[in-house]
């Protein structure tokens, strides 16, 4: 398959799945098989595209010219190649898992759920491979709207209110800040194409640069920078497969990815370093990292705790992008991968505990470890990766961002990251210790479907594999920061 064809397959396989599902809904098995099969197509396509990108190519497809100077173009950048693999690869596991979860919980409206889920993945793939900022924005919005029915899936009062916050913050920030930011760039640079080294150097008045950075930093609501992070904990009202794939990977990583793309391919690292336009952002990211970790400690609800941990981890990537140093930006890209595999593991485990034992509080987990050992071992590995302990993937990205902080002349950030790791140890290992080191709990009836146990085990193993596969990742990240 030519890389150009692969781009189309990767982006439109999920959409085809979404279109097919309503017609397959008469037969639940057939309907639920559509997701994994489509995911497999997407993933293979993503691998083909990534292979082409690794050799230095940047395959591109223009679907349609929306208007003069506004092409619906997909062009795969090295960063996009990586993100595409992450989103489609984890979709395979997530779609298997969500089948197990939705059936185990006997949820209603499973067809609508499956359709929106597939559309969301379609949007994520399109974001990953977008060729210019406007295409990225278009699918950024599609992603928001397609995930709304997933967040409000339960249709309870609480879910609807969460949906309001979700739409209000994500759409509000994107329309009020992000879109004017994009149009400002368009007018200043005359183009919106992602270009190595950025497009704003010598075109944007350096005095205006911090303001433009602010439009993007707060306009990209999906990256959940404080104080616009509230939508993410609210979105946890969604079924766990949504939290796992979308609010640990696709949606939030689309935010982080957008941030990275804007900083690297629109502003350009050198331009940011010369003007210091993003230094304030690094401090805000540092604040978010620590503040949300502290909030996470206070949360007893497992998913709420994981949500605040995600906010903290997303700001690692914002920090990496804001440091204006090549090695930090590379670390940001690597962190997208590492955190995705680790955090999806944790959410899968949280869901498995909920389906299997109907528990959702950290304080209820005492002595549960021996009853569901695989789940808690997977949780342990995921937690270690986020903390940054070798031989797990998360250690590499943390190291790269730390190096980048010194490189950028902000050694204090190393301390911030170290303190954050300590806080991670506290709030992520607590569930594991409670499960294994408290007396065995035999009161709870445990019945975990296999489809909810297998995926977290696999993703936990992926976190280990990624530690040893770091060279592949850095070969992409080096291509990304090449001038």
């Amino acid at each position: 398959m030519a890389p150009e064809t692969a781009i189309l397959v990767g982006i439109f396989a999920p959409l085809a799945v979404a279109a097919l599902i309503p017609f397959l809904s008469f037969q639940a098995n057939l309907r639920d098989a559509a997701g994994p099969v489509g995911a497999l197509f997407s993933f293979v396509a993503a691998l083909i595209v990534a292979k082409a990108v690794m050799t230095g190519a940047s395959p591109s497809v223009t679907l349609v010219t929306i208007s003069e100077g506004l092409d619906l173009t997909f062009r795969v950048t090295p960063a996009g190649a990586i993100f595409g693999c992450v989103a489609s690869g984890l979709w395979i596991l997530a779609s298997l898992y969500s089948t197990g979860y939705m059936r185990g919980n006997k949820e209603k409206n499973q067809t609508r759920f499956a359709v929106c889920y597939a559309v969301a993945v379609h949007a994520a793939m399109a974001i990953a491979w977008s060729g210019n900022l406007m295409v990225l924005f278009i699918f950024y919005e599609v992603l928001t709207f397609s995930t709304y029915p997933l967040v409000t899936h339960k249709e309870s009062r609480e879910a609807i209110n969460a949906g309001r916050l979700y739409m209000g913050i994500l759409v509000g920030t994107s329309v009020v800040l992000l879109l004017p930011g994009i149009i400002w760039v368009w007018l200043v640079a005359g183009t919106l194409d992602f270009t190595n080294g950025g497009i704003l150097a010598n075109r944007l008045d350096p005095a205006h640069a911090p303001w433009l950075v602010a439009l993007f930093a707060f306009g990209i609501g999906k990256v959940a920078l404080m104080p616009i992070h509230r939508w993410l904990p609210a979105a946890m009202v969604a079924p766990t497969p949504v939290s796992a794939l979308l609010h640990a990977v696709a949606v939030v990583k689309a935010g982080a990815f957008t941030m990275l793309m804007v900083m690297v391919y629109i502003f350009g690292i050198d331009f940011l370093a010369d003007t210091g336009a993003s230094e304030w952002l690094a401090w805000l990211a540092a604040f978010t990292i620590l503040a949300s970790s502290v909030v996470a400690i206070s949360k007893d609800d497992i998913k709420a705790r994981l949500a605040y941990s995600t906010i903290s981890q997303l700001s690692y990537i914002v920090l990496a992008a804001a440091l204006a140093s090549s090695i930090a930006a590379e670390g940001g890209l690597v962190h997208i991968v590492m955190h995705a595999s680790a955090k999806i593991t944790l959410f899968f485990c949280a869901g498995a505990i909920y389906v299997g034992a109907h528990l959702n509080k950290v304080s209820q987990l005492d002595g549960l470890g021996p009853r569901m050992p695989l789940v808690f071992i997977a949780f342990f590995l995921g937690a270690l990766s986020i903390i940054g302990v070798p031989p797990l993937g998360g250690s590499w990205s943390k190291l790269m961002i730390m190096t980048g902080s010194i490189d950028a002349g902000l050694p204090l950030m190393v301390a911030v990251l170290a303190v954050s790791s300590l806080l991670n140890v506290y709030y992520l290992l607590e569930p594991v210790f409670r499960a294994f080191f408290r007396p065995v709990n035999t009161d709870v009836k445990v019945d975990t479907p296999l489809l909810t146990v297998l995926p977290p085990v696999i993703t936990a193993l992926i976190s280990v594999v990624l530690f040893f596969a770091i060279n592949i990742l850095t070969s992409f990240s080096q291509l990304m920061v090449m001038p």
Partner: protein
Amino acid sequence: MLDLAHIPVLVVLFPLLMAAVCALLPFRNIAWLLATASTGMGLLAAWTGLEAHSGERVSYALGGWPPPWGIEFVADGASLLVSTVVAGLSFISTIYAKSLIEKEIDEHLIGKAYAAWLLAVGGIQGIVMTGDAFNLFVFLEISSLATVTLISLGGRQDRRALIAAYNYLVIGAIGATFYVIGVGFCYAVTGTLNMADLMVRLPDATATAPLLVGFSFMVAGILVKAAVFPVHIWLPAAYGYAPSAVSTMLAAVATKASIYVLARIAFTIFDGLDDMVFLILEFVLLPLSVMAIFVGTILAIMESDLKKLLAQSSIAQIGYITLGFSLGNVLGVTAGFVHIVNHALIKGGLFMAAGALTVVMARRVSIDSLAGMGRAMPITSSAMMICGLSLIGLPLTAGFISKVYLVLALVSSASWWIIGLVVMSSALSLIYLWRIVEAMWMQPMPASGRVREDPLIYTPLWVIALINIWFGVDAGRVFRFAEQAAKAVGAGG
């Protein structure tokens, strides 16, 4: 097959002539067929003209009297574009109107209703096509009186329609009178009524005070007809209480023609008097547009009746169009014309859906009573959703294109605080749409169960919804036509 030279007059004549026939016909189906055929012919003529338009101004001398003495109809980039929008939307709403008019209007009045309908359309087309400032007043009155008749037909469902019609009659008459007084001043100074001739003669006039007064009167009168804040007060009740089919047609096309006239006055007739035009645009139209956007959005958020909510939102949307015009440069006026096209599609679709819901529920539709209707009428409701998302400017819909070009025009003229206000109100419009979404889709289906939906109602609705998507993905053509229109009215020149 159509002689291009005759197009300016054909688009007006098709509906006007057929109106007379319809009024005399006792058969409602034939009246509907004739109405459909004549609006369809109008669309064919307008579209042929727009497609074949080469940038050259085609003039048609009525009765063989050459302008500036005789009345002139003009086909140029701007009039053809607006005329096509009017023809297209009136054609599709005529098809849609059949089942609704039969349900909402007394049997013996149906033929006459179609006659008034066609008169309104013909009058609006006349406003768009005429090149004569006084003749424009005549068409303004024709369309007004026909519209008043149509609105008052809503009196069977709700007596408040009669008050709304009366209000529109009085306020509309004041607007038209203001306009004609303004024309009188210009005529006194220049001795001509032909727009192109006025454009040439006005700069040479020595008496500038009467011209300023005339210009202000004309603009003020047209602002009333275009429902620009704060002289929009007739609109929510008129659209809210008119029969559903009438609301659809009016919302899609009626104010668009008046907004177009605004551009004609400012950029064509008074083209040579830049200072005066700038004064009105910068200090009257621009602030009013921004206020319209905010007030309309906020009133829509607070409104509980569906049709009135859509009407309040129209106030805000008209504000977006006039905001583009008030910038006065090609980019801004282009953005205005783009939104004239897109908003006609958006609001046309939404009012169609509101009409479909009204007919099914057989009462006024409030937001609360929409509970679960998404599940009871999925075909209608999902098309309504597409138009709604287009209204708030979701990418890949027509509304997004409007928003991008408006913001682009604002950024290029460095109007930072206005951009802030515009995008903020655009985000606020999410609130009123979301009240509808939550009611329709996040509630259990009403006890009455699935409703059988009428294909004659939902097919036109879906056509509009799909065009909303089409123009969101492939906007180049609309943009080029809009740019051509902006240049034709003489923006920035």
